[in-house]
């Protein structure tokens, strides 16, 4: 670790803080501008009509309807900085607890999808790029183009129909079996329930990574150094291993970490289709239900995870690429 690294990390930390502040302001403003009336959405038109004025005022206070927005934001921000994310209005539990539960549900889903789409996408992209114009390339490219123009929720519905409704191989939804006590749920149960949503996310994630890797691979195969390697009699496995693979690995790492944001974004829709009680679904519920503290916290946590991914990519890049690692040490 040298000075360059400290500066790099410090810069990124400042950036994270600024970004978080911006995101929280935008989310807050959007929530306030939303046409959803928290009382109507959560209590219901009929129930509201039968309530006394006093009861209504109490509710309005609970949902923060009459507090001036700036004051509301500042008080939220003050608590947040002190580590208090507030209480979820919908779940009536501390936001930290809600997020911990939802995130642990989602995390497995996201991790499976992320790793699967990363490895598969990389492999397909490399095969496609190495065999440019041949049958393998055409098939892979065709598959990727079809998938990337297919909406994730539609694919989710399709898989649900085939594997759950017709073939009865996988459950229709949720993250655990129905009617089983929490202590009786095994890891196998959890994985079993995560397969379809994870598959959906992986399939959509693959196409993007594969297409990008393919582009890079083609560039590399056409590069002067591969040309020279061929002139020197390098071919087959050695040509791939030392010239292709080594050079495509760097952009692939960046791509892989940048894809976190896409998997995260995709999970919101996919969790909805599979009624999977994860962070994505909680975000939708919080948005529609005007649960301000929860939505703010989810947005910020997601942003931090995405940003953390990008930061990791940058750090790894510096560690792997000798041009950065050694180049900086010299100067």
């Amino acid at each position: 670790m040298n000075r360059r690294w400290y500066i790099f990390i410090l810069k990124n930390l400042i950036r994270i803080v600024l970004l978080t502040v911006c995101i929280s302001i935008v989310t807050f403003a959007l929530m306030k501008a939303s046409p959803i009336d928290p009382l109507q959405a959560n209590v219901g038109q009929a129930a509201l009509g039968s309530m006394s004025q006093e009861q209504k005022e109490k509710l309005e206070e609970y949902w923060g309807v009459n507090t001036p927005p700036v004051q509301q934001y500042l008080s939220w921000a003050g608590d947040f900085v002190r580590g208090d994310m507030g209480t979820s209005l919908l779940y009536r539990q501390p936001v930290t607890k809600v997020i911990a539960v939802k995130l642990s549900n989602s995390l497995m889903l996201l991790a499976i999808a992320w790793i699967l789409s990363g490895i598969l996408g990389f492999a397909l992209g490399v095969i496609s790029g190495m065999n440019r114009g041949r049958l393998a390339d055409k098939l892979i490219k065709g598959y990727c183009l079809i998938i990337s123009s297919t909406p994730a929720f539609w694919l989710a519905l399709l898989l649900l129909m085939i594997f759950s409704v017709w073939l009865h191989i996988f459950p229709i939804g949720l993250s655990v079996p129905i009617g089983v006590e929490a202590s009786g749920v095994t890891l196998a149960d959890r994985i079993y329930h995560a397969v379809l949503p994870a598959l959906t996310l992986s399939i959509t994630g693959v196409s993007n990574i594969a297409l990008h890797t393919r582009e890079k691979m083609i560039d590399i195969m056409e590069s002067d150094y591969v040309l020279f390697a061929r002139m020197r009699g390098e071919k087959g496995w050695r040509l791939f291993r030392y010239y292709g693979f080594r050079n495509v690995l760097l952009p692939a790492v960046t791509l892989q970490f940048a894809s976190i944001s896409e998997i995260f974004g995709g999970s919101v829709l996919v969790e909805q289709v599979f009624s999977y009680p994860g962070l994505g679904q909680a975000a939708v519920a919080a948005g529609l239900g005007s649960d301000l503290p929860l939505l703010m916290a989810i947005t910020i946590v997601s942003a931090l995870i995405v940003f953390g991914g990008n930061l990791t990519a940058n750090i790894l890049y510096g560690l792997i690429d000798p041009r950065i690692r050694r180049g900086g040490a010299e100067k």
Partner: protein
Amino acid sequence: MRQEEREPVLKIENMSIVFTQYDRGMHQTELPVIRNLDVEVYAGEMVAVVGSSGSGKSLLAHGVMGVLPYNASMGGRITYCREELTGKRMEKIRGKEIVMVPQSTAFLNPLMKIGPQIRKGRKDEESRKKLRDIFRRYELKEEVEKLYPFELSGGMNRRILISTAMIEKPKLVIADEPTPGLDLKVAKRAMEHFRELADMGAGVLVITHDLELALEVADRIVVFYAGTTIEEASVQDFEKEETLRHPYTKALWRAMPKHGFQYIPGTQPYVKNLPKGCPFAPRCSQCTGECSKEIPYRTVREGKVRCIYAE
């Protein structure tokens, strides 16, 4: 030189390279970048192909090595050690018997350390020793083996490129502009290294635009103009203007600093609008109507020339 009695290591006859291009939608055009190219290289001999930028020198080298881009097709006949050099045969011997030193240092793998890169991953003691000897000869420190190309200066990377040829036991070396960016002294040294390879028995084909440098080390000069060989002359022929054959070669001679630095008016025509017949005709003072006909490559005074008026 007693070339006539021996078989050449490399013999290129009537080579042509055509690019197929699509411009404006699906309209397909053929771009004949090289036509009627003839070159011979004998064992122990150093031949310099001299031509200005864009005349197709690198393509000639890539064509021989069998690594043309996918939209290029090559015609003609290449013979290597008496037998035709087919793509299959080339794949077997390139990098071993036939080596090439490419034009720029972008041809080095940026993510592979110098040592393994030159040795192509071989780890046996013989290769290691050979590399240490080469490094000593080129005044490169042993630590350089553990560095990456980006950590070396341009001149050092040049020597690394040349080392990739030296570590093999080549019968034929093709060097594409091995000296740009090197100062005169270092450039001469680099050329001398190729001369040594020739003296050790290999055939060496050096591609360059630097006629003066070529004259100092080569045995024969092949002059290249707009994708065609227009003259083949021994180095001695360049001592006087009169012993040269083609008007373009004579113009090149007059453009050399020690012969008055006379500028050749006009520019080399681009392949898309080549004149019929002699490509030099538009710039030639001796040009007549006959020059727009097919010009044969004929032997004149032990050399060859593609000009109907040469004698």
